[in-house]
C-alpha cells in the first residue's frame, strides 16, 4: 500500500504515478470528520457550539422572508423546509433539464430567487446565500449522498478528469493527495479524503461559513493553479464528481472543519 511507505519512497511514488490513480473503495470511504481532532469534532457535534448554526438561523429567517416583485417567500411555495427540503442537499448538484446541465444548490437557490421571487440573486459567498444553503442542507443531515441520476454521467466524468489532472506550478492533481495519500500528513495536518458531505462548512481558518466552490478554489490556490470562477462549469463538475465519489456518505452540514 502506498499509504504505508516511508516518506522518500512515498514522494517518489507520488511523482511517478500515472495521472489516473486508484479511487477510494466504497468500504474505505470516510467523512473528513474522522480526520479531525476531538475538540473540532465536539464543536460540530453540539449545535450550540457549532458557529455554522448561526448561519442556519440567518437562513431560516430568509426562508420565511417575503421578497422580490412577487412578494413571495421560499416558504410560500415550499412550505416547511424541514419536510420539503429533506434529502435535497444529498442529491445536488442536480441535472436541470431546461439548462441541460447540472446546477449546484447555491445556483438552484438563486434560480428560484430570480425566476419565482423576481428578486436579485445573492452574491456567491454572501452571508445570505451561505445561510440559506446551510439551512436547506441541514434538513438532509444523516441522509446518504445520492447523485446516481443517469443524466449526470458525462458531467461526473468531466469532473473526474479535472480531479485527476495535474495542475498549477506545484503540478499536482487532487487525486495525488486525496486518493493516494489520505491519512498521511501535509505540513503536520492530516490529509482527508476530501468529501463534500458537510458543505457549507464553518471553517475555523476562515472564521466563517464557506461553500464547496470556495474550498475548491482554496485547494487550487494551494497548487498555484488558475482558480475556476464561481459558478463555472469546471467547479460544478468537480462538485458533482466529489459527490459521486462520496456516494453513500451521510450529509453532516453545516460541518465544522479546521
Amino acid at each position, binding site marked *: 500500500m502506498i499509504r504505508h511507505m516511508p516518506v522518500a519512497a512515498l514522494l517518489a511514488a507520488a511523482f511517478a504515478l500515472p495521472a489516473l490513480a486508484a479511487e477510494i473503495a466504497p468500504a474505505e470511504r470516510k467523512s473528513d470528520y474522522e480526520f479531525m481532532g476531538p475538540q473540532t469534532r465536539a464543536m460540530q457535534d*453540539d449545535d*450550540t*457550539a457549532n*458557529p455554522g*448554526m*448561526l448561519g442556519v*438561523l*440567518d437562513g431560516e429567517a430568509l426562508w420565511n422572508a417575503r421578497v422580490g416583485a412577487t412578494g413571495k417567500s421560499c416558504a410560500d411555495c415550499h412550505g416547511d423546509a424541514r419536510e420539503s427540503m429533506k434529502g435535497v442537499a444529498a442529491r445536488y448538484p442536480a441535472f436541470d433539464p431546461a439548462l441541460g446541465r447540472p446546477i449546484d444548490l447555491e445556483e438552484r437557490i438563486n434560480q428560484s430567487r430570480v425566476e419565482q421571487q423576481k428578486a436579485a440573486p445573492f452574491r456567491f459567498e454572501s452571508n445570505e446565500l451561505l445561510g440559506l444553503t446551510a439551512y436547506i442542507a441541514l434538513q438532509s443531515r444523516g441522509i446518504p449522498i445520492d447523485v446516481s441520476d443517469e443524466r449526470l454521467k458525462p458531467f461526473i466524468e468531466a469532473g473526474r478528469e479535472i480531479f485527476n489532472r495535474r495542475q498549477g506550478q506545484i503540478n499536482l492533481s487532487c487525486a495525488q493527495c486525496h486518493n493516494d495519500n489520505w491519512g498521511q500528513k501535509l505540513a503536520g495536518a492530516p490529509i482527508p479524503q476530501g468529501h463534500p458531505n458537510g458543505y457549507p462548512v464553518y471553517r475555523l481558518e476562515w*472564521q466563517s461559513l464557506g461553500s464547496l466552490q470556495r474550498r475548491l478554489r482554496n485547494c487550487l490556490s494551494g497548487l498555484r493553479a488558475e482558480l475556476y470562477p464561481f459558478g463555472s462549469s469546471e467547479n460544478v463538475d468537480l462538485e458533482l464528481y466529489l459527490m459521486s465519489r462520496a456516494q453513500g456518505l451521510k450529509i453532516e452540514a453545516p460541518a465544522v472543519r479546521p
Partner: protein
Amino acid sequence: MTARTLINVPAKARRGEVIEIKTLIAHPMETGYRVGLGGELIPRNIITTFVCNYNGEEIFRADFARAIAANPYLTFFTTATASGTIAFQWTGDNGFSASEEAPITVE
C-alpha cells in the same frame, strides 16, 4: 440590529449543582490591523465586554481583545442556586449591543 446568538443553559438543575453555560454570538471581530483591497485600514470592530447576570447578580464577566476569533464562543460554569433568569449582555465597538436571556428551574 440584533446579532444572532446561540445559548445553552440547562433548563433544569438541582440546587447546588455545577452547571455549564455556553454562549455563541455572530460577530466579525475585525481586528483593526487588516487592510482592505484598496490598501485602506479596516477599522477595529470587536466585542469589548461580556457580562452574565443570574437573577440580577453578576456571576461572570469577560473583556474581549482583538485576537479573539470571529463569532466568539464562551463557556463557563456556575452553581445553580435558584430558579429564575440567566441574562447575557455583549457590548462592543460602534455601539454594538446584544442581550439574551435563558430561564432555569432549580429544584
